[in-house]
């Protein structure tokens, strides 16, 4: 794709009412949906009415008066952006009178705008410049000195963009984008007339305001008033490639705007069906890690982890990898090695890693990071609905009447989807939040939850059962839906169970700490408020009853008939960009791609015929069991692609002991991450900018990842896996990831209709995409559940074994923050550290007072598993008795604290419940200091010997 701006139709499309009108614009007849603006109608006809304050990401405003038109039979010159089309209307957009008026308007703008176009960062990419040309501006009768706005100080506080008030034309596009698109309301216009000025918050700078740096204002700005620093530094782009973000599971698509091989900026793609033209601070700006000096670009090996690394050729590294794995298998057996696929890599790459393990290693010892996040979603939704995926697309939220968010913090974890959700809430949908913390959704500008149920961590199942109790005992369930779509006898068993008095809101209040009346009111609202949609995150899954909680949610949705149409459903908010895809691709040790068990003879035969090898019918090891087996001496080699289990997995001591017990750990990554401290072979990885492939987001949407620059390390990750496979005796001959997708489609019924050609044509596809659903499936279970009848599963509340007591009286729960992504390997290597330079421990003022702690104090956080130190953040966001921290920084290593307790069905760790004590500290613990020293030593790279 060469460079051109995306077409801006000036005003957004209208919601379809089914009615249309026919009108004439400049002699051309056109029929359009009722409510469409004249400006948009003209644009869709291929015309272009001059505009400044209008852009199709926000509602029309009618401020700049540049878009005036003439309408036959009407007086005056209406603004085309605010005037809807009407039947029989005759519009003229180009007349002498209109030209005169527009030039007059433009004269006023230019009289108060610097004319430094040749040295301006937006030169050639400035709408004001373009429109001055479009209206034929040749002179400005009022002079060029302006009244007040020239020479104002720039606000350069934001690390990614500058604000130059001198270049602002007060069109309010930025203010409206912040309100309508992002929903933060951080910007305003202060003062009046010539004194008017865009202002973050109350006269603060951008960094110090509540601005979340999503970039919507920069994208909306028609001048250089808000402009990316990188554009100022590098110049405007000369080509653009559409690709998919590699951060969270929303899967935003962007135009990677390039100047040669240099990435100038990432601009959210308006046609992207997941993000609809919006972005967050990570995807929009935090891509600098791709060129960070810490990236390792050469393969390295070492005999033991106390030695420095030695750079070697790719040939030597690959041969050594294959040789070591074969040596270990010869000595310890076929099942003595395994691997971990990456949810940050593409579908094609994860498919190849699991294929390498099943076909090449000859076992099923493959697992993925979903083990520690959404594996309970896979189990729970498979049991109840029949497949491991969310039921809706993101657009569905715009038809929800009641939104129930449980164990999720979308404004931080899934910010672009959260903006859509907030938009719907501002339109009037009701909100229920079930979360121990008072997240931003509970109370933010123009949004207030009807009910916030701040339950005690670890009591999700009790809470959801109590809600079900109300639904059943007050006969709020949808009997017709249940009789038609579910197993009625199983429903009756479940209904009898939840109806028992012991499961009433009143009975469980002492467990959850939530008033019974609040629970009853929330239950009534969800069951009777219209379309009820449930969104959940890791606050549901990362518990000892994660799978039970997922099934409880599914039970509730089925009981109220909230499955199988738009506006409802059960929606897991996936963490990593391709965690859905990694699961789909057969990354779990018990199943092939498409969630088919390895013991299924027909499925296994299909793979055996295609791959030409007998496959193991026994499930392999999960990650924590790999580590157990390693310490037992039966698991000796591990291939880890794009994961950092030492930092992200629970009980760091356990992970370290397992890794240390292995004879060959191979890490394929961008950086020498924490896991690499225990590695013997390092294979440098490539970024999402450097390869082709696909990601699948949380709504099952398969989208293309496109290579925009050559891999700095020399190979895309799929090529590296192929090199390892072939060195191990396989004979893979993939030339392009599209061939891998063709193999996936041939082996996976839900992907049967997916190919790169289809993706190019459609933009994206939501699986299942096959003969039964050629265009994909935005809404699942529409005519029936995948498993046939929906299954109600009785989910009894079983308290966690992680107990508070005198030594550990507080409950720790962990999570993430907007500016960082998981272990922070990428975002810590960007300017996002401006917002979150360290992990902090949130603590309620009463708990802090009891310990004599003040905000900012260093504290020791101790559990039965270990201890660390970090600084305290005193806040009422957490309830008394609960503390909270993030896990983005290896200096803190929050997972030194978390325990080995895990979900009963999937072993997903219980990150959200750890009994802890907090006390004053003088600084980093002995363990932290020792670990820092070990990490420094482990990252030594021996200098290359001088050439002779």
């Amino acid at each position: 794709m060469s460079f051109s701006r995306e077409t801006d139709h000036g005003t957004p499309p209208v919601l379809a009412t089914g009615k249309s009108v026919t009108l004439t614009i400049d002699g051309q007849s056109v029929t359009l949906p009722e409510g469409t603006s004249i400006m948009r109608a003209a644009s869709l006809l291929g015309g272009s009415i001059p505009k400044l304050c209008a852009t199709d990401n926000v509602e029309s405003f009618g401020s700049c008066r540049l878009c005036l038109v003439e309408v036959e039979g009407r007086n005056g010159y209406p603004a085309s952006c605010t005037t809807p089309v009407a039947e029989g209307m005759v519009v003229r957009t180009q007349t002498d009178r209109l030209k005169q008026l527009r030039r007059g308007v433009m004269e006023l703008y230019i009289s108060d705008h610097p004319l430094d176009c040749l040295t301006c960062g937006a030169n050639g990419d400035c709408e004001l410049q373009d429109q001055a040309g479009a209206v034929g501006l040749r002179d400005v009768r009022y002079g060029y000195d302006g009244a007040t706005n020239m020479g104002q100080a720039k606000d350069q506080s934001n690390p990614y963009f500058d604000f130059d008030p001198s270049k602002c034309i007060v069109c309010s596009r930025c203010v409206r984008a912040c309100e309508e698109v992002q929903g933060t309301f951080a910007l305003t216009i202060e003062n009046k007339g010539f004194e008017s000025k865009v202002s973050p918050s109350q006269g603060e700078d951008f960094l110090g305001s509540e601005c979340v740096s999503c970039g919507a204002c920069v994208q909306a700005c028609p001048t250089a008033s808000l402009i990316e620093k990188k554009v100022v530094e590098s110049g405007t782009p000369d080509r653009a490639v559409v690709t998919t973000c590699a951060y969270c599971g929303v899967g935003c698509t962007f135009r990677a705007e390039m100047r040669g091989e240099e990435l100038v900026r990432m601009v959210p793609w308006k046609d992207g069906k997941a993000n609809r033209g919006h972005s967050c601070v990570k995807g929009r700006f935090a891509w600098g890690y791709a060129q960070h000096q810490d990236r390792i670009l050469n393969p390295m090996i070492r005999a033991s982890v106390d030695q420095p690394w030695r750079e070697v050729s790719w040939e030597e590294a690959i041969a050594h990898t294959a040789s070591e794995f074969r040596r270990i298998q010869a000595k310890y057996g076929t099942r003595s090695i395994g691997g971990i696929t990456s949810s940050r890599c593409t579908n094609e790459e994860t498919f190849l890693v699991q294929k390498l393990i099943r076909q090449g290693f000859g076992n099923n010892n493959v697992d993925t990071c979903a083990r520690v996040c959404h594996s309970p979603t896979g189990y729970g939704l498979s049991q109840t609905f029949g497949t491991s995926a969310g039921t809706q697309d993101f657009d569905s939220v715009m038809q929800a009447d009641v939104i129930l968010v449980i164990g999720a913090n979308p404004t931080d974890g899934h910010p672009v989807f959260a903006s859509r959700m907030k938009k719907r809430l501002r339109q009037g949908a009701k909100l229920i939040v079930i979360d121990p913390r008072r997240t931003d959704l509970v109370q933010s500008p123009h949004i207030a939850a009807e009910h916030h149920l701040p339950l005690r961590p670890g009591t999700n199942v009790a809470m959801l059962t109590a809600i079900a109790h109300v639904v059943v005992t007050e006969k709020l369930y949808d009997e017709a839906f249940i009789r038609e779509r579910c197993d009625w006898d199983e429903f009756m068993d479940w209904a009898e169970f939840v109806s028992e008095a012991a499961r009433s809101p009143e009975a469980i209040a002492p467990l959850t700490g939530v008033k019974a009346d609040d629970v009853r009111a929330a239950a009534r609202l969800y069951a009777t408020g219209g379309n009820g949609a449930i969104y959940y995150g890791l606050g549901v899954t990362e518990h000892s009853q994660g799978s039970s909680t997922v099934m409880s949610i599914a039970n509730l949705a089925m009981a109220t008939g909230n499955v199988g149409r738009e506006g409802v459903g059960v929606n897991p908010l996936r963490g990593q960009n391709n965690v859905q895809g990694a699961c789909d691709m057969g990354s779990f040790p018990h199943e092939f791609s498409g969630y088919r068990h390895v013991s299924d003879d027909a499925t296994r035969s299909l793979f055996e015929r295609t791959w030409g090898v007998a496959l193991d019918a026994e499930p392999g090891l999960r990650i924590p069991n790999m580590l157990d087996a390693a310490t037992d001496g039966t698991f000796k080699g591990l291939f880890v692609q794009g994961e950092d289990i030492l930092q992200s997995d629970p009980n760091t001591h356990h992970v370290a002991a397992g890794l240390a017990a292995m004879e060959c750990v191979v890490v394929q990554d961008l950086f020498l991450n924490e896991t690499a401290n225990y590695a013997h072979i390092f294979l440098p990885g490539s970024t999402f900018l450097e390869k082709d492939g696909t990601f699948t987001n949380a709504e099952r949407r398969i989208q293309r990842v496109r290579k925009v620059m050559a891999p700095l390390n020399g190979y895309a990750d799929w090529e590296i896996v192929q090199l390892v496979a072939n060195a191990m005796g396989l004979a893979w001959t993939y030339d392009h990831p599209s061939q891998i997708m063709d193999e996936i489609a041939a082996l996976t019924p839900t992907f049967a209709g997916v190919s790169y050609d289809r993706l190019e044509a459609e933009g994206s596809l939501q699986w299942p995409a096959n003969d039964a659903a050629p265009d994909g499936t935005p809404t699942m279970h529409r005519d029936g559940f995948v498993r046939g009848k929906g299954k109600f599963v009785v989910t009894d509340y079983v308290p966690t074994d992680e107990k508070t007591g005198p030594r550990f009286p507080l409950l720790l729960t962990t999570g993430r923050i907007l500016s960082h992504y998981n272990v922070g390997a990428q975002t810590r290597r960007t300017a996002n550290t401006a917002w979150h330079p360290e992990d902090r421990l949130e603590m309620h003022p009463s708990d802090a007072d009891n310990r004599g702690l003040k905000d900012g104090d260093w504290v020791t956080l101790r559990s039965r598993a270990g201890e660390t130190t970090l600084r305290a953040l005193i806040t009422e966001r957490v309830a008394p008795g609960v503390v909270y921290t993030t896990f983005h920084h290896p200096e803190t290593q929050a997972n030194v604290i978390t325990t080995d307790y895990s979900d009963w069905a999937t072993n997903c760790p219980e990150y959200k419940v750890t009994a802890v004590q907090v006390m004053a500290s003088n600084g980093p613990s002995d363990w932290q200091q020792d670990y820092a020293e070990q990490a420094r030593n482990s990252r030594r790279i021996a200098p290359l010997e001088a050439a002779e």
Partner: protein
Amino acid sequence: MSDDTHVMSTTDRLVYMAHQIARNMAMMGEAKATEALAEHLTRFWDPRMKAQIIAIAQDQPERLSPVVTAAVARMAQGRPAPQVDAAQFNRVDEAGHCDAG
């Protein structure tokens, strides 16, 4: 897990896991729970984990509840074959010479 210990041995963990699954299936009643637990262990546990829990059932039966004992016995009826070495495995269908790419 007591306040003084924070690292389980593998066998302790397997015993714990089996009982944790059983507790979450207890509402089914003993017969169904036994069946469901046996199926769960069969479908999700690696052969060495299965072998270890079978060995515990034989050598230290007092560590397992009646439901877990019955489920392990049922699972053991379909006990997997021991692993073969890698070279032997790959000779099964000559993976080294396939052209699956």
